[in-house]
């Protein structure tokens, strides 16, 4: 649903989260309600890297998942602005086709763990977002290979399914996939958690390149050097949390 198509003002946020709240109702446990976050409100503009801070279990990953449409929201709006047209869509309204369209063109997500598909090679996992946009298979494969090389994944692994890879190797496949396309919004959930220093530095460089290109990044980084290298602003999610402090 298009909320408005007022002029594409320079500097208007690409992502606006307005009064979003989320809870889980666990029917198998007598309908107990687990509140997660409430009144989550922030903007992310082009070239900004907003970092969600605060201790584990406070709802940081849940916020990313809501913005990707993977979790439903109880209330509030998640407005995604089209960089070229200025059109704004409310992802929180939840229409599956709207969410799928936003994912294809606007929102990239690097989750903490790669969900591997049996029999699909690392190269194909990485090339997939390009193929979904109609890029020719050969071109997509070449670009995917270049991205994996940049992340120092041994080329012997390119044609193997990532199921048997180490944690760090899987994570690099996941990062490569998320960085293949120039999404306007990139969601990063601890992308460097299982990487060594060399590869961590590669990822930092890649994040900075995206910011220079005008991507709006929202991320969770427990890794302090990475956070300091990329964050333009940090918000403490504890302010939105409806959970009792542990």
């Amino acid at each position, binding site marked *: 649903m298009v909320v408005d198509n007022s002029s594409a003002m320079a500097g208007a946020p690409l992502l606006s989260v307005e009064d979003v709240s989320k809870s889980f109702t666990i029917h198998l446990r007598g309908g107990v309600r687990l509140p997660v976050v409430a009144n989550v409100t922030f903007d992310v503009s082009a070239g900004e890297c907003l970092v969600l801070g605060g201790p584990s279990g406070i709802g940081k990953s849940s916020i990313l*998942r809501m913005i990707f449409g*993977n979790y439903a929201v109880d209330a509030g709006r998640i407005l995604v602005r089209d960089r070229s047209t200025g059109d704004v869509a409310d992802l929180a309204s939840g229409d*599956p086709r709207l*969410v799928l369209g936003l994912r294809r063109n606007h929102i990239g997500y690097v989750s903490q763990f790669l969900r591997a598909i049996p*029999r699909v090679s690392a190269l194909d996992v990485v090339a997939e977002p390009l193929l979904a946009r109609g890029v020719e298979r050969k071109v997509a494969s070449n670009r995917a290979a270049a991205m994996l090389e940049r992340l120092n994944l041994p080329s012997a692994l390119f044609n193997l399914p990532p199921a048997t890879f180490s944690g760090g190797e899987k994570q690099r496949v996941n990062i490569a996939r998320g960085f293949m396309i120039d999404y306007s919004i990139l969601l990063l959930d601890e992308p460097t958690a299982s990487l060594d220093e060399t590869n961590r530095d590669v990822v930092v460089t890649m994040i900075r390149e995206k910011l220079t290109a005008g991507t709006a990044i929202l991320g969770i980084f427990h890794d302090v050097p990475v956070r300091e290298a990329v964050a333009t602003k940090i918000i403490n999610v504890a302010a939105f949390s409806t959970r009792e402090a542990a």
Partner: protein
Amino acid sequence: MNSDPILSVRKLEKRYGNFIGCTDISFDVWPGEVVAIVGESGSGKTTLLNCISTRMERSSGEIRYRMRDRRYPDLAELSEAELRFLMRTDWGFVHQNPADGLRMQVSAGANVGERLMAIGDRNYGEIRRRASDWLERVEIAATRIDDMPVSFSGGMRQRLQIARNLVTHPRLIFMDEPTGGLDVSVQARVLDLLRMLVSDLSLSVIIVTHDLAVARLLSQRMIVMKSGRIVEQGLTDRVMDDPSHPYTQLLVASILEN
């Protein structure tokens, strides 16, 4: 993505006397989209699939289909000839048991070629060439073209059934537990093949399965059924990661973690 649905189901109901097979079923399918219908045995999902594909008569409700000429009639308004065209050409139906979708006493090549002949192809050499192409696409050696499906393994039979369905370039495929009868290793291969073909050919698919892992792998949207009714529907990953209905939560909680 095309903005017009290829199929719309509204208030569909199937009754057997007082017994409800399925009721109050409404959803749309868009071109190129895979929709999974999940639920346990007896939830009405196969009844629903059979009603939509006109293999079974509905009791009430609407089923509209986008014809190649852009008309959008209710299937009940179509002539016998038009319905036959849909069944033989524009649609495919992949059964759980390949023997239900194949002719076991004729060769693999004839099983694939038969659908071409049904739409008027008469050039034997051309039919054989296309049959052989399709066997290779589903990873069956072209040298097996003259063998009977009875000599094939379960996985090969299922792949042959898929080739037979796709040779006419259908736009909508119905699948009823397509990997249900296969060993796990064979299942992975068939799923991988289906995933590739569906995306390469931009097929619309309605797949019935009790296996949530299969639904997750193949579908973008999911419909959860219980006792003949839809209890939840939405994006597949959201329904699985953030299920809201008690029954969906139970289903998801019952999956083994890997």
